[in-house]
């Protein structure tokens, strides 16, 4: 079995990629995907920790977190759709009516 530490390391990597992606990419969908990456990083960490501690709640946390991520995507996509309808763009940089 893989040492949970490696999983943690991977999740840290994922998290950094996610966070980095979130503020470097313009496309809202890709940013959403990066956020999903961050959530998944957390999920992996939970899973690894559950294994590490031999504690089943970690798995429950993971499942819940996946559910949260799923609803987040749903809401996100809905909002993006609405936004596209009005702004005709899903580039984060183009949408800046509200500022200052």
């Amino acid at each position: 079995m893989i040492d949970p530490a490696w999983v943690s390391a991977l999740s840290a990597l994922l998290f950094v990629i996610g966070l980095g992606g979130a503020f470097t990419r313009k496309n809202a969908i890709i940013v959403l995907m990066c956020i999903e990456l961050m959530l998944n990083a957390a999920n992996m960490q939970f899973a690894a920790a559950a294994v590490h501690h031999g504690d089943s709640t970690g798995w429950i946390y993971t499942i819940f977190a996946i559910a949260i991520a799923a609803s987040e995507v749903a809401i996100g996509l809905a909002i993006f759709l609405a936004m596209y309808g009005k702004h005709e763009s899903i580039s984060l940089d183009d949408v800046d009516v509200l500022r200052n």
Partner: protein
Amino acid sequence: MSDLKTVEPFGEGFISALCPELILFAGLILLIVIPNLGSGKFRIPGTQTRVPWLLGGNRFKLTSDPRLPSWIAVLTIGTSFVMTILSFQDGVERTAIVSEGGTQILMINAFSRVFELIFFGALTLASFACMNRLDVKGIGAKLSTEELYNNRRQGDFYILMITCALGMSIVALAQDLFVLFIGLELASFSTYVLVAFFKESKSGTEAGMKYFIVGSVASGVGLYGLSMLYLWAGSLQLDVLATTFAQSGNEALPMIGIGFVLVGFGFKVSAAPFHFAAPDAYSGASSPVAGVLATASKAMGIVGLLRILLIVAAPESSEDGTVWLVCLGLLSIITMTWGNLAALGSTNPKRMLAYSSVAHAGYMLAAITAIGAWNWDETLSGDPGEAAVVVLAALIFHLMVLVAFKLGAFLVLSVLESEGGGSKLSSLGGLAKREPFLAVAMFIFMISLAGVPPLAGFVSKLLVIMGIVKVALGDMSEALSTGSELGLSDVHWVWWLALAMVINSAISVYYYLRIVVVMFFEEAEEGRSGPLPNGWQVRFAILVCLIATLFMGVASEKILQICETAAQSFNYNWA
């Protein structure tokens, strides 16, 4: 430590213990069902027999009333509010909802109940005010009032309000950080949608998008922090975490984990530099929703911060002061100064209120910093709990009264918004002539926000400053009374937070007064001189806020006692 009553889910006493939350749940169901009641018939498959099952079809007259969902929501949240108040009647019974294994999931005590009061109060008022607020004209679509009323989204809006309330109350009750997180996400998702609710407008969708995407990043960071904590402690139970932290809290893992969680909550309370989406969201969202964000949602973030900082990373568990103290102190100063400075030049009243809300977050962070600083010097060992209770009570009181005048201010703006204004300072012009009641109310809210006595805002700010000063001075008074010579260098540095606070309040007066000046002494904009849109509900809500602002300023004694009880029940080591 008073008696702790434990209740298992759906066990004995469950319903009475979680009465307000269950009411909310029931209300949620009703809200989904009732507006859909109609002449709908169900065709039994294979036959032509249609059994009326009352769902769908042509709605009944009553159920098609566009105001029905709001009434249901108001009644639901209002009832929860009343039930919460009632639970204070003979002191809140301390009740824990435990899992089968005996781990505490939710905890009902004065602290959580007081926060529920804040949430429910804000949401009730907001829902009530929205009752005749949704008929927005001019924002994007050219929908008539009737069309809007018939819009099914009426129901959706209030469903989101109730889920928001539900999520928030879970945050207040949670004893497990993950449960807290789930509640937080529930409430957050609701608010994301509420912010973006006016998808017919550019700004509505944009605000929703920004709030959503930035919020998601923040909660992603927070969740990752939680996972780190879990990795370190093997549990996210608050008490377990606290015990573990006391043993090995100085390691990198829990530190960084806590730091990341801080980011998640920091976004909710809109602390700098996590506040950026807030002004956009506030100005894009409808005013009552913005009001909810500025009050209830902020209070929710504060609960999270309190839990994580004061229970988990409790100062009493570390040896010489708290590690996050400097960090939070800096954050608080940056936040309050940033907020005030930004508000100074803002010409959009909603953005201005948003920035002012950022500044208020700074004040609250300062208060939390003060609590963390209580045992800074071992030579002056006072009674730390006493000081902490004072600050915490002040903080709770502050959040409470904030509902009155911050939400009130947003509601006044919402009336203007109904005629398409509210996003420019000049649209407030001539308000005193158009509707003196609103102008006077707004004036009271503004000077209360600025902290002018004898209004609630003054008392709350005073209390926070008092708390900070008390902590900063420790028990210097004792040393002084024995004749020792102490100077400013003997005062803990959190005292300077108090100074920053008062100076910031002084700055803030400038922009609050500007609104007053515009309302009273500038002419109305072109085409805005007529009477304002009708709607007694929103005015009633404003009136309630107004009375609360005045009442909690002049006669704060009773409420202060409640806050004190709540503060004491937050951590039983202090009582």
